[in-house]
């Protein structure tokens, strides 16, 4: 067998092995505690929401979706143009190749930010009109400006890693590069709860419920904190954050402002502890790794015509490919996220044994966030990181039926 054919065969075998390994890992990560045979009932949103509530939520979300699509198209267009003409900004750099690569990456992000700014302002106007936020326009622009600086620092670090590795490893940088990004993501996830600076939860009813979950239901013993966000938003929310010793449940103070009853908040705590119980954050990191390696490889392939990632000229193309890949992978990302949320909801139902609280909570979310309880199906793969409200209520109904309630 000629050497070239043998090499191709070896490569094909390696690719197949990698694909099989990828599929096995994905299947293991996808598996949840939600019963496989669970069938969700087909519900009618009119049974849970008034016509006026549905109309308001649908009208609000339809405009938000329009802004999203507009910003998506505009951002992509800018990146396409930038991939072609971004090279001319090389003359604005007195730095070496890596510094110039950083500049090109930052300018690309800066152009996207400038393009999306009007959409952001329109969205803020729409949210203010519906009393969903009290943030001012100047806050958003100035805050966005400063956040852009942090983003620039982040992308510079990413370029430093990629170009720094691509110089000694022009064809294989993507292997240590992807590993480095996974490491950074893990570090970020670990450190994040320490940066929030939330206060410990003091509500005795909620604290007692969390202790009960830990003692009776073997949910993990992690601190519960309250973050002050009410200066910026009225949206109620909570999150599970951290890894290992930094694990936390963070409740936004907007969810504790009286709009939700104690039993609903207990359900929220059950849901967030459920994320920790099911190790969703480490699993999310593992998912990230599964996408990071092939993603980095594809970027390496796409930028070869411009000299590979060791050349600053490749950076505008790499940006476009990165965003394009993220867009292509977004159905997978949202599906993974919805899968985890479903599992956390199921755990919350199991530990609280209070389906009414769950139902009330989801109805309350829809009203407070003006979330369409039954959004158009085309939005699911690109926008819905959580199951639709009606699907979450359907899960409550299914749990009741399964447990004879």
């Amino acid at each position, binding site marked *: 067998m000629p050497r070239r054919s043998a090499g191709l065969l070896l490569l094909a075998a390696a690719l197949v092995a990698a694909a099989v390994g990828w599929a096995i890992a994905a299947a293991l990560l996808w598996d949840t505690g939600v019963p496989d045979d669970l069938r969700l009932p087909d519900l009618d949103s009119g049974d849970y929401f008034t016509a006026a509530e549905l109309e308001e939520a649908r009208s609000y979300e339809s405009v938000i979706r329009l802004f999203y699509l507009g910003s998506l198209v505009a951002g992509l267009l800018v990146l396409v143009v930038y991939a072609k003409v971004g090279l001319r900004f090389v003359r*604005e750099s*007195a730095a*070496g190749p890596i510094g110039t690569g950083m500049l090109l990456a930052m*300018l690309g992000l800066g152009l996207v930010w400038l393009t999306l700014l009007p959409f952001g302002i329109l969205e803020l106007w729409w949210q203010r009109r519906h009393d969903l936020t009290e943030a001012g326009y100047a806050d958003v622009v100035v805050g966005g400006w*400063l956040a852009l600086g942090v983003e620039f620092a982040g992308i510079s670090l990413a370029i430093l890693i990629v170009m720094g590795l691509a110089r000694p490893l022009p064809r294989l940088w993507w292997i240590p590069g992807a590993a480095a990004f996974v490491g950074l993501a893990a570090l970020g996830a670990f450190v994040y709860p320490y940066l929030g600076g939330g206060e410990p939860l003091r509500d005795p009813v909620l604290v007692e419920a969390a202790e009960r979950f830990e003692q009776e239901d073997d949910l993990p013993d992690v601190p519960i904190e309250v973050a002050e966000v009410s200066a910026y938003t009225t949206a109620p929310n909570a999150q599970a954050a951290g890894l290992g010793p930094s694990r936390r449940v963070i409740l936004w103070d907007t969810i504790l402002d009286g709009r939700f009853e104690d039993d609903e908040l207990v359900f929220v705590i059950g849901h967030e502890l459920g994320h920790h119980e099911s190790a969703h954050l480490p699993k999310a990191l593992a998912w990230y790794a599964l996408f990071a390696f092939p993603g980095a490889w594809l970027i390496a392939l796409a930028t070869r015509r411009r000299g590979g990632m060791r050349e600053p000229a490749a950076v505008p193309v790499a940006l476009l490919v990165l965003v394009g890949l993220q867009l292509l992978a977004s159905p997978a990302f949202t599906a993974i996220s919805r899968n985890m949320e479903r599992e956390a909801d199921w755990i919350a139902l199991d530990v609280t044994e209070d389906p009414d609280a769950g139902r009330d909570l989801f109805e309350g979310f829809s009203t407070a966030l003006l979330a369409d309880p039954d959004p158009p199906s085309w939005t699911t793969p690109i926008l819905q990181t959580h199951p639709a409200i009606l699907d979450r209520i359907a899960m409550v109904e299914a749990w009741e039926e399964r447990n004879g309630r």
Partner: protein
Amino acid sequence: MEHPPPPESAWDPGPIPPEPEPPRGPDHPIRLVVTDDRRRSRLTVFFRLLLAIPHLIWYFLWSIATVVVVVIGWFIALFTGRMPEGLHGFVARYVRYGTHLFAYLTLAANPFPGFAGDPGYPIDVEIDGPERQSRWKTAFRLLLAVPALVIEATLLGLPGAGSGGSGAGGQEAGGEDAVIGIGIAFLVAFFAWFACLVRGRMPHGFRHLNAYALRYYAQTYGYLFLLTDRYPFTGPFDVPDPEPPPPAPIRIAIDDDLRRSRLTVLLRLPLAFPHLVWLGLWSVAAVLAALLNWLVTLAVGRSPAALHRFLAAFLRYQTHVYAFLSLVANPFPGFTGTAGSYPVDLEIDGPHRQHRLVTLFRTVLAIPAWFLALSLFGLLFAVAIFGWFVSLALGRMPEGLRDAGAFVLRYAAQANGYGFHLLTDRYPYSGPADRRLAPPDAEAEPPPPLPPLPPEPPPSGLAPA
């Protein structure tokens, strides 16, 4: 009127050799003339503020009359396109008198000034006669003058108009309403007061810097009060000075074409974020290296070459980043502080012998320089803000603003190189003579004759030409 020679007294130093013919300022209708010999009478320096009280009262009254005259002149100039000769002469005298008074107050000159604003004072201004002025510029003069007034307030203060300057607050001087905003020149005067009392001589750099502030004052108020429609020139490098600047081991080299990329100007602050993070990290190592450098220099009287190189690279990098951030230069800088890699760069001489006593007390000795550098950063801030708008609009940085920023960066680098990094034991030169700064080995030979000043560049302020 010929000004009488300053009286000799027991506090005066000995005779000072005659100075060469002073260079004149650039071809602006309002030009500074410096004939001051830097001798100061310790007695009048000691009582300088009190001695100026009659002048401040007179200045206050004259200011009121000038405002009335300018309002009348504004209407006339709006219709005829020219200030009447009589009104022009009145206002010109006022501006000249103000320059004399503030030169006296800030110790930039020694003799007690006359009350009439006659020419002949050691720090003086020449003001051309009335000329045709653009009616549009006349109509919007107050608005157009705002950036210049801000820079003037930073440099000298806002005479007679409340507190201003670089955040030093206000100083009551001669009546409830005559409050003088304190700018850089008054901070210089504060330090100069001690130096003059001890040495009987105004430090060269201090006089030069205050001359810069005074020229800007005269040009700004000349512009505001309709003596000319030429915008004040912010650049400090052509401020006349009768003496050559001292040699400097840390110099600035400018190789910038003034072109600015609008996109990188728009995003300048966030673009600098990675550099600021890196600068912060490098600073930690630089502090440790500087401490080590101090100990070694104290012991052996010379900075070790490796430490000197490391600290020089840090100082250069810091200058590159600040130049980028403040729009003094255009391109995105590298991260290593390599010499010659940036259009606004530092030339730093190699290690040389340093006086151990000066090294021992370096931090204390550097305090005035650090204060002055901090105060000059107010000017750099103004340069960055106004430069941002102009560069965004024109794709070009005005030369005057660029040079003012470069001067601040050079002084800050010298202050840090002297006080913090111990790259040299030569005290920072506060005068804006960067185009003429020479390395110390030039000391061995007599300074070459000063080259003729370049022709005045086209007006580069914010006002349209």
